[in-house]
Each structure stands twice: as C-alpha cells, then as structure tokens.
C-alpha cells in the first residue's frame, strides 16, 4: 500500500473508478459533463464556483483541477482568491452560526 493519502497523479486516474462500477461511473461522468457546460450560467462562472466549493470540501484534486481550469478560463488570481475567501467566509460563518445553538443550549441548562 502507498504510504501517503494523496497523490497528484491520481487525479488523472479519476475515470478509472469505472473499473469497479462502470454503469454508475458512466452516469456520474455524463452528468458531471452536463453540469459544467454553458447553460443558464456560463462554463466560466461554473469554474469559479467549483474552485470555491473545492476549498470548502477541501479536496486537493479538485483544487488542482479548478485552479488550472479557472485560470485557463480567464479568471485573474485576485478573482480566484476572492472566491476562496467567499468559501472561507461561508465555512467560518457556518461554524459561528452554530454558536447560537451553543448559546441556546447553554442558556437552557443555566440557572
């Protein structure tokens, strides 16, 4: 077994997941391809969203793929970093807003 968890070269092997379940893999890649086409949102806009989400889900493969894709599609470094900040703000806000639950519970058990 490999002695590490992430290998950049594995990104290129993504389609190999079909080896264990081809039918579902085909459905996933077909759907994935459709999702990223120009439609109500442009492919360029979707690429920036994907970059932000990649950071939110902290997927190094996705970060590599969509950093390249977003830059290739014409987003600037500043715009890409702002997208990352949006992801970070939502993640930070998501943690903090649960602080209300913590406050509610604390107050509920307090005298």
């Amino acid at each position, binding site marked *: 077994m490999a002695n590490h968890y992430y290998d950049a070269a594995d990104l*290129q092997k993504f389609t190999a997941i079909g080896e264990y379940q081809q039918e579902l893999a085909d459905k996933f890649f077909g759907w994935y391809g459709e999702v990223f086409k*120009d439609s109500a949102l*442009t*492919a*360029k806009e979707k690429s920036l969203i994907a970059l932000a989400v990649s950071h939110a889900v902290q997927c190094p493969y996705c970060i590599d793929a969509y950093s*390249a894709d977003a*830059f*290739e*599609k*014409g987003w*600037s470094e500043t715009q890409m970093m702002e997208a990352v900040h949006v992801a970070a703000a939502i993640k930070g806000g998501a943690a903090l807003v649960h602080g209300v639950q913590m406050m509610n519970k604390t107050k509920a058990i307090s005298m």
Partner: protein
Amino acid sequence: MKCMKSLKALHHQLASSTAQIAVLENGTDHTLPLFSDKLRAEELYPLRPSEITIFQVNVGKMCNQVCKHCHVDAGPDRKEIMTRETMQLCLDVLAANPSLQTVDLTGGAPELNPDFRWFVENIRQLGRHVIVRCNLTIILSNKRFFDLPQFFREHRIEVVSSLPYFTQDRTDRQRGDGVFDASIRALQLLNEAGYGMPDTGLQLNLVYNPAGAFLPPAQETLEKEYKTELLKRFGISFNQLYAITNMPISRYLDYLVVSGNYEQYMDKLVRAFNPAAAHSVMCRNTISVGWDGQLYDCDFNQMLDLEVACENSRHLSTWNMAALQHREIVVNQHCYGCTAGAGSSCGGTVTK
C-alpha cells in the same frame, strides 16, 4: 518595455533546433506516444497536403518585442531578414501559381523588413489576399510606422494581431511591460482607420495565446467575452478571435522546462489529441517560406529547421508545385499542439 534578449543572443541551449527536437523526442524523464502513431491510427499517416492555397512568408526574425512564448525566438537582436531578391522569388512563384490565393506575412515584426511595403504592393498587384501578422506595438514604436493603419487600409490588408488577454497583467506578463497599453492604443488607431468596423470590409482579427502552461478555452465563448470587454473598457471593435495553442518550441519550450511544466503540458496535449483536428491541420493547405527562401510545411517546422520532404523543391528557386502537392508532410512531437482539443492553426481552432 523591459529589454530582453533572444535565446540565440544568450547562446542558450534551446536556441538550437536539434536540442529542441531532442527534448521533444526524448522528454525529460518519460516518453510520449509518437505523434506519427496517432496519425497512423487515424489512417492519416503519412500526412499529405490537400490543395495548397496559403503561402506563408516569414520576412525576418527581427522584432521590437521579446514575448515569452515566441516560437520564432524573435527580438531586436535577430538579424535574419528577407532580401528583396528573395521577395522577388516569392512574387515569381505567386505569379506562376494562381491557386496560392492568400499570402500570410509573418516575422518577427514583418513591418521591420525595409522592403515590407514594396513586397505588399507587389503581392496586391498580383491580386492576392494579404494577411499581415502585426504585433500592434510596432505602429507606435517609431514615427515611420505611424501611418501603417492607412497603408494597410490602402492595400486592403487583413490584420491579425496577438492580444493574449483583455487585461494588462496577462498581456504584459507574456509580451513585455507596456505592451498592453501600446496594443490598446494601436487597436484604437486601427479602428479609426476603419479596421474591425461594420461595412468597411477591413478585417481586424485578434489572437489569444494562453499566458501559461494550459490550453485555450473555447474560441467562440472567448470571442464573445473579448468583444464585450474590449468595447466596454476601451471602445475597441474587431472581427474574429483566433484561439491558438502555444507550441512547445523555442522560448515557450524553455518556459515549460524551466517552470517544471513540460511533462504535464505534453501529457495534456496528448490526452487532448482530437482526430477531427488532425484531419484539418493547417500544414495541409499551407507552404511556409523562410527568410532565406527555404520551404517548410508550417511556421513551426520552419523554426525547428525541418525542411519539406521534397528533395527537388526545398527552396523558392526550385519551386515545383506538383512535387510539393504530393509530398509527405514532416511531423514530430510538437504537432500534438495543432491537434489538441478543438485544434489550432494560424487561423484559430480547426473544428467546430
């Protein structure tokens, strides 16, 4: 503009076409499938011409810019320049071969050739369509070039110009400090002369080159974005955008190797191999002429010193249309650049 030297002036290893081919054929630490095998699988090998209609002429390697991706390794220090005698040989070939309907003038900055205007006037007298690959900044570089937009208009020249992006950072990063501002001003001057404007018939086409180790996005989408942004930001109009893939040759090859992107970029090109693009590569309808009159299958083969495989017609002085029409086109690993994705040619993508 920051002064930079060509690889040749720096005595850089990759100034040699032999060294470039060695990198392309052997890679740095792994080998790629042979391009010829890819063609063979599509029953396209050996690659043969369709009808030769485009006569592309490199009138010299001198340029006022030193762009980081330049496959010519052009720059102010390059002295190779086409003589009027060689231009006359071009005119003789054109006069004798009416199928060569388009003359595509390139460089360096073609306008720096002292006989550029004489050459253009004579080609036009032969009734041929002329394309000039103008780098834009040349127009503002010296007062003797200020009237180029009027000269182009007078001779109904099609102007094709690189503008890597509609923002300053990406453009200057690739083509040199100050290039973006000068290019924008030059485009405005071309617009004022009628270029890119409705109903004038004066064609102004822009070229997008990726500013890094990646492929161009979809040409059609990018063209819409360029048109919107250039009009909004600078009041500039143009006709078409050509999205061109950077070829792993010369300064761009050097960039790929030095930045550690060579393998990844070549893998990307190979994975993106598109048989439909392979059917329509530009070398099938083009002959490329070097500054010294040597003949090549394309501008890229010219820079790699890969002459046409046509023993009795390798120079303008021995031009033999029938032999050239039946030659085998010389291919090598750099050809993956023309067949990746939607394909790439001097006129942009080759598939729809």
